[in-house]
């Protein structure tokens, strides 16, 4: 099987072509990465404002009044302002951080290289997908600046709250801009998904069979399939919601509603329809957010234990199962919604089923370490941290996947703790791990290990301190999306826990400065990186750091080995690269 020839292009000339409107998947990957970095700073700032308000709901902060003259009159954050910060926090983090960097950031950069290709299948579409994502981000952020401000219906935007502008401040133009931004983002995602799928299927080099793909490539592939099918449905839902808001339709709005003393004209719609459409997208979305991090973790645990991934085939089947089952569990977000109790039972069994491949992956990660020879680089620390956090975050899902237990836990902090552990922490650790691992290849320099380790340890303990207490709050019945806890006797008793979490959040946020210093300083002043600083086996480590514009310098790599041939008995080194000659494990004796 010889590789198809990608339409050869010459090295780009000029600043704009090289760094702005670039067709090069590597530049586009970095652009996505920086978009995610910018977004995570916004998202994190919003969460700090939220945590501050929860423990100081009546505080007067002068600059609040400057930023939000209507929503924070006298410097006091109103409940509607809190809810809009919360809505934008969730939206920006889920879409512009977790759905960009892991897939479109690292995936764009490394999928073509890891399969031995010159670029993605559709470079122009690739460039368009990034710029469309950026337009979506601009539209999203603009919601802060319009009359009424950003929407307050949460990142889940349930109608009628999101469908009827009179239901609250921010539900006017702000909510409309939110929907438009998401629709644009859907378009960008679909473009990216098509590119990833076509690239993986068509552009693998000679010898790169499916079962020799690095696990990172498998996760990027399945993630792209989830994105293709999921985002299409979200786009449809968004269109219907906009029509309900502005064209007088009633897809989601039933008859008999009265808002702000006005009886509404709508009739015939169902709020549950939105929930089904949204979560049909929303559940695959969370697997989109976590699968690439799982791929990175597998890759790094193998590299830094000098040991093959335990049960490669099982890992592939687990990724495929998670992707497939991921489309069948959306109803577990709707156990209390009023949908049929029989549906709830079906969704529950499927949800428990999806716990099985996740468990397989966890056991196999530990199995990879077992008997290994572990090098504790910062990249490896984040991969190990991912495993610990995934265990903690995943296990709380066992409670929530049972409708019987969800009768109490739905819409409490137990849920908030669960999804933050998995998405807000484990997935982010996957991004940190990918950064430390691939930075030498992307920028030709090494990051600072001391700064990296300090950042890791403080962040690891910090995120446990922030998010574990949320499970205890959930057991105590603390509802989510409350802007303050002073109206209920039982909530007043929980304020010390909120205080602790807020302090932990401040500290953990502050230590992220070390990461940014490390990242930017190392780009310019880090020690020069060799071609293969980690003695790793996959194709990106066979080309210069950073790579030339066409990755393999016009060569077509030929793959003779699986992706994780570490510590093969009899081999001269403790790793065999995928492109090493077929007899690398037993090289012919050379006479001296």
């Amino acid at each position, binding site marked *: 099987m010889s590789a198809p020839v990608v339409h050869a292009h010459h090295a780009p000339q000029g600043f704009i072509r090289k760094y702005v409107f670039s067709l090069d998947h590597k530049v586009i990957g970095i652009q996505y990465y920086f978009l995610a970095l910018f977004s995570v700073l916004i998202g994190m700032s919003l969460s700090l404002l939220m945590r501050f308000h929860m423990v100081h709901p009546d505080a007067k902060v002068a600059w609040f009044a400057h930023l939000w003259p209507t929503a924070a009159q006298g410097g006091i954050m109103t409940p509607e302002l809190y809810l809009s910060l919360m809505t934008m926090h969730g939206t920006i983090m889920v879409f512009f951080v977790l759905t960009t960097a892991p897939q479109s950031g690292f995936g764009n950069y490394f999928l073509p290289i890891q399969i031995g290709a010159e670029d993605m299948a559709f470079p122009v579409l690739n460039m368009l997908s990034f710029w469309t994502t950026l337009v979506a981000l601009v539209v999203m952020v603009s919601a802060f600046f319009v009359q009424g401000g950003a929407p307050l219906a949460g990142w889940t935007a349930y109608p009628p709250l999101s469908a009827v502008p009179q*239901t609250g401040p921010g539900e006017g133009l702000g909510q409309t801009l939110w929907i438009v931004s998401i629709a644009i983002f859907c378009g960008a995602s679909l473009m990216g998904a098509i590119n990833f799928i076509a690239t993986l299927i068509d552009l693998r080099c000679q010898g790169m069979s499916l079962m020799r793909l690095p696990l990172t490539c498998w996760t990027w592939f399945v993630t792209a399939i989830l994105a293709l099918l999921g985002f299409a449905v979200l786009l449809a839902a968004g269109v219907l919601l906009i029509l309900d808001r502005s064209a007088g339709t009633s897809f989601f709005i039933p008859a008999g509603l*009265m808002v702000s003393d006005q009886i509404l004209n709508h009739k015939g719609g169902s709020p549950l329809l939105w929930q089904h459409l949204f979560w049909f997208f929303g559940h695959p979305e969370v697997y989109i957010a976590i699968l690439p991090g799982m791929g990175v973790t597998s890759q790094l645990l193998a590299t830094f234990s000098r040991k093959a991934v335990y049960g490669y085939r099982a890992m592939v089947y687990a990724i495929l199962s998670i992707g497939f089952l991921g489309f069948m569990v959306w109803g577990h977000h709707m156990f209390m919604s009023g949908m049929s109790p029989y549906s709830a039972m079906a969704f529950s069994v499927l949800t428990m089923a999806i716990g099985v491949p996740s468990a397989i992956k966890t056991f196999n990660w530990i199995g990879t*370490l077992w008997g290994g020879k572990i090098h504790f680089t910062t990249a490896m620390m984040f991969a190990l941290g991912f495993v610990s956090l995934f265990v903690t975050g995943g296990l709380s899902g066992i*409670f929530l*996947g049972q409708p*019987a237990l969800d009768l109490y836990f739905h819409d409490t902090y137990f849920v908030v703790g669960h999804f933050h552990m998995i998405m807000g922490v484990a997935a982010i650790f996957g991004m940190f791990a990918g950064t430390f691992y691939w930075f030498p290849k992307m920028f030709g320099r090494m990051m600072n290990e001391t700064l990296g380790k300090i950042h890791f340890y403080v962040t690891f303990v910090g995120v446990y301190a922030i998010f574990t207490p949320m499970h205890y709050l959930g057991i105590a019945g603390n509802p989510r999306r409350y802007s303050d806890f002073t109206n209920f006797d039982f909530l007043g008793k929980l304020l010390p826990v909120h205080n602790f979490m807020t302090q932990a959040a401040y500290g953990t946020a502050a230590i992220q400065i070390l990461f940014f210093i490390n990242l930017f300083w190392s780009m310019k002043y880090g020690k020069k990186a060799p071609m293969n600083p980690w003695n790793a086996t996959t194709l990106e480590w066979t080309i210069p750091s950073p790579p030339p514009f066409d990755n393999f310098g016009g060569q077509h790599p030929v793959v003779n080995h699986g992706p994780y041939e570490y510590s093969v008995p009899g081999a001269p080194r403790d790793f065999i690269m995928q492109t090493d000659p077929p007899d690398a494990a037993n090289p012919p004796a050379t006479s001296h």
Partner: protein
Amino acid sequence: MLLAPIVWVLTVVIIYFFASKIWWFPPPISQHGLAYDEQFMRTLVVTGIIFFFAQFALGWAIFRYRDDGRRASHSHGNNKWETIWTSATAILFVGLVLTGTKIWVAVHLSEPDPNAIPIELMAKQFAFSFRYPGPDGKFGATDLTQVNDAAGNPFGLVDKDPAGKDDIVSASLKVPAGKPIKLIMHSRDVIHNFFVRELRLKQDIVPGMEIPLYFQADTPGTYEIPCSELCGLGHFQMRSTMQVMAEADFEKWKQEQAANK
């Protein structure tokens, strides 16, 4: 390498806070609540054991297999172990769902008790209102155009309907202890949610749907009702109470309300 003791310490601390029940459920006030707590404990024990062993094994691997000069072992996996832990996980997880199914069926899929006392709940931004049918046992007709919160008519009772004359409207939920209740829930505007921690029950209140919730509270007391589905800027203040009282006191309360009409 330092990571191993950190993981172990975190594991022990986390388990400690679950075991010590410092922040915990309030005591249950119903048979359903007792069954709920049993299923919760079953799940907590299973997940707790898995949590402990997984984190312990991770920490152990980090400690034991740190690079000290030896060569790594060469293994691509072990199908026997894969099968064992996959099956064990599947059996445990599905087992938990099955034991919990009884509880779910009891709440939502059982024959409703024909003697359940019907009480209507109407949720709106940002208050709960409750309605009792009064001595005639019939709920009066309602119409959205008759709604007048300021005049104490949140349900929009229609003047012309005599059945509605004796309806009791209350801002808080009052129920007799030990008697089955049928809470008939409506929303006037957006999605809300009725939640009583001590009952271990919650249910979304969806506009356009009439959703019944059957329960029986056995322990007298006053219990808070926090709205538990984001409904707008007043969500954090949307509060009511459920007062469970001896049956005799409940009858007395109803008579007092009727007399005040």
